[in-house]
């Protein structure tokens, strides 16, 4: 992905540049806060304290981060294969259907630790299926995957409206959602871990999905950098011509990469559905699939970066909610602006400051530039 720019030492590439981008985003956000007549420094303190200041805040931050880790990994896997899957939203949403069916069927008979693996399979399977169709259209018909995955987000939304309103809604209920799951489909909380450190938690939805997310992050790292399949995906992602030369089937690798990407996107639905709400409700994904794009961009498509970026976005979600509560002039929309700025500077304008930093590095030590960049790629 970053071939034309890959000339910085790893620590600058993966640490310094995201940090600079982030700082600029926050400075600009600070001006916006000033514009509505609030003190940006106080706002920053509230934001950080809201996210990390108390046990409950930390638990909420990590709960949000869990979803973003899944969606970020989903985007990253596709990116390594040169594909831009922006259908994570739809793949996650439709996966909720699979999870819902499994939970409704088994929550009265099985304990959570048997329902959970079945739900994981259902979530991954539905997400994969939802990604498979655009992947097939791309590989065989040349239909651009960005367009088809976007369209599939809308199809998923419509399917879910139908399923929730006409099929899964309990008789007599007015809310477009399934009945609440029984304890057999409720995932255990992880709040006790934070409480081990002496913090107090009133009620927060952090659950075992967080551990699953970390396991998946490790597995994605293993897949991309340590397996033959990952090698083939990276080859195709960097150069389709080289992949052809190496005898890698284009159709096969696109299908596999998208299936894995879709499965990861699907798994993000486990967190809100089984870990928090204990039902499948309308619009439960609420944009987490799209946040995954920013998370993957910011995390440079590396699982470690993605986990860190996901926590950052979790912080923005959680701290942002606190901020809206504490400073009435700052509405919920304001938080969206700040998140947008982070995405803008860390994602879309990722390379804005890079040339200057490179020039700076080159002027200090012309020899160091380039040689050390090797350690960068995960190995």
């Amino acid at each position, binding site marked *: *992905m970053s071939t034309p720019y890959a000339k910085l030492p790893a620590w600058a590439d993966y640490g310094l540049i995201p940090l600079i981008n982030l700082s600029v985003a926050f400075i600009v956000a600070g001006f916006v806060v000033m514009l509505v007549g609030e003190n940006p420094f106080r706002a920053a303190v509230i934001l950080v304290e809201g996210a990390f200041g108390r046990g409950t805040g930390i638990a909420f931050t990590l709960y949000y981060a869990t979803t973003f880790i899944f969606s970020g990994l989903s985007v990253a896997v596709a990116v390594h294969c040169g594909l831009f899957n922006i259908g994570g939203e739809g793949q996650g949403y439709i996966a909720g259907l699979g999870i819902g069916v499994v939970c409704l069927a088994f929550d009265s008979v099985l304990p959570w630790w048997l329902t959970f693996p079945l739900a994981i399979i259902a979530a991954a399977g539905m997400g994969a299926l939802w990604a498979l169709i655009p992947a097939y259209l791309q590989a065989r018909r040349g239909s651009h995957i960005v367009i088809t995955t976007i369209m599939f987000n809308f199809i998923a939304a419509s399917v879910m409206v139908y399923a929730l309103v006409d099929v899964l809604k309990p008789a007599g209920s007015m809310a477009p959602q399934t009945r609440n799951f029984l304890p057999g489909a409720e995932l255990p909380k992880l709040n006790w871990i934070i409480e081990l450190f002496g913090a107090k938690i009133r009620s927060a939805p952090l659950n075992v999905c967080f551990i699953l997310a970390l396991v998946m992050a490790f597995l994605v790292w293993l897949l991309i950098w340590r397996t*033959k399949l990952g090698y083939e995906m*990276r*080859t195709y992602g960097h150069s389709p011509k*080289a992949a052809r*030369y*190496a*005898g890698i089937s284009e159709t096969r690798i696109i299908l596999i990469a998208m299936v894995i990407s879709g499965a990861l996107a699907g798994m993000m639905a486990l967190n809100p559905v089984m870990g928090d709400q204990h039902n499948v409700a309308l619009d439960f994904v609420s944009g987490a699939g799209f946040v995954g794009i920013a998370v993957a961009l910011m995390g440079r498509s590396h699982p470690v970066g993605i986990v860190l970026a996901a926590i950052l976005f979790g912080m923005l979600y959680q701290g942002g909610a606190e901020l809206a509560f504490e400073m009435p002039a700052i509405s919920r929309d304001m938080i969206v602006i700040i998140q947008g700025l982070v995405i803008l500077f860390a994602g879309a304008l990722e390379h804005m400051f890079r040339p200057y930093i490179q020039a700076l590095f080159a002027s200090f030590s012309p020899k160091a530039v380039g040689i050390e960049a*090797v350690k960068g*790629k995960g190995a």
Partner: protein
Amino acid sequence: MAQAAIELIGINKSFGAVRANRDINLEVARGTIHGIVGENGAGKSTLMSILYGFYQADSGEIRVGGKPVSINTSNDAIALGIGMVHQHFMLVDNFTVLENVILGAETDALLKSSIAKARSELERLEREYGLEVDPDAIIEELPVGLQQRVEILKALYRGAEILILDEPTGVLTPAEADHLFRILKQLKEQGKTVVLITHKLREIMAITDTVSVMRQGTMVATRVTKETTVGELAELMVGRRVLLRVEKGESKAGAIKLSVKNLTVKDSRGVTMVDDVSFDVRGGEIVGIAGVAGNGQSELLEAISGIRHAVSGEVMLEGKPVDLTGKADPGELRDRGLAHVPEDRHHVGLVLAFEESENSILGYHDDERYLKGPFLNVDAIVADAKDKIEKYDIRPGNPRLKTANFSGGNQQKIVLAREMEQDPGVLIVGQPTRGVDVGAIEFIHKRLIAMRDQGKAVLVVSVELDEIRSLSDRILVMFAGRIVGERGPEATEGELGLLMAGVEHQEAAE
């Protein structure tokens, strides 16, 4: 000599380490047709792009009509009366001829007056130069020859006195080309100056007054066309470089390892690039394919290695048939003992963003030696890469270093080491030493000869005539998709140069 329309003095232009133009001097007399010939990559197009303001020269001076000028954009060039007809047309396909002609030269916010003015102007140009074309036709519905005429009209409409045409006949049928030449002659009679860039010597002889020859970024000679011959130009184009002869013994040609019969290959546009080509390569010999770049060699290599599907043809590898028309894929051919060093190592032969060790298994990543179940056996891969680094003296000798950080010569060695160390029966190599430093060239040549001496069949495609002559036991010359001759390594450069220029072929055809 008439007054100079254009003078270029000491033009230099580099792209990174590549010197595309070195110290170029050129004088084009007013009211003449001046040809510029040279192989692909000789720097012709770069020079003309400098003249047209696409690139800025690193140093040197441009004079138009005797006055020093600076041309920073194509608008500057147009203002100075320079018009350019590009090899790939710059037309809006779904606009009409008129709309294309006024594009960028609109006089008003509303198009009506511009169009009316253009219509009468076009009629005048048509009368004067015989450039008939329906002003209301849609571009994409016109044949290529007419589209080119629109390009010329565009330039003339903008008041061009000097017209540059870059490989204008590449896309034309012979009849269309003849018509174009008539138009150019008419333009000349009207006092316009024409600069014609081409690598086709026949056209130069047919139409130009003077001709300049470029080779490897330098201007090697300027001749009056009447006083030169195709042979001399061919020799100037190809050049007499310092020979890098590698010591080699007699070849002991054995059984046929690669046999190609009636192979036809089309490119993505559907143009036939390899036309009914047949040849054999035996074990223990190096067969070289010579030719000016763009005569089908690349497509030939791609087809034989399975990257590009052939239209028809029979190919036998180690005595067994291979279906190159759709079934074969590069992985399968590799399994059957065909190793391929591709021409384009940056995008095909290597993944520059990969570590050296990762590239040292590209294409062989299915091999169990490099795997532990579904996982890469990183230790084995790195150990193997280290082994190759030692054997092929690849520097820097760090298998974890990113491939983009290696020099061209060392990158090529990475590819060669990978392909040769698999002990293939047949090795096909495209441009073995393109962009490779002199030290590495000798090493690579020695390795290729060592492969031959081990009884492998080696097929080399190169645009470097020296290389072909120095390596090959037999030389095949490709021109316009066909093999137009076979010579021994003792063939002279002049002889091969003529074949490469298609001269003998043309004469035979006429």
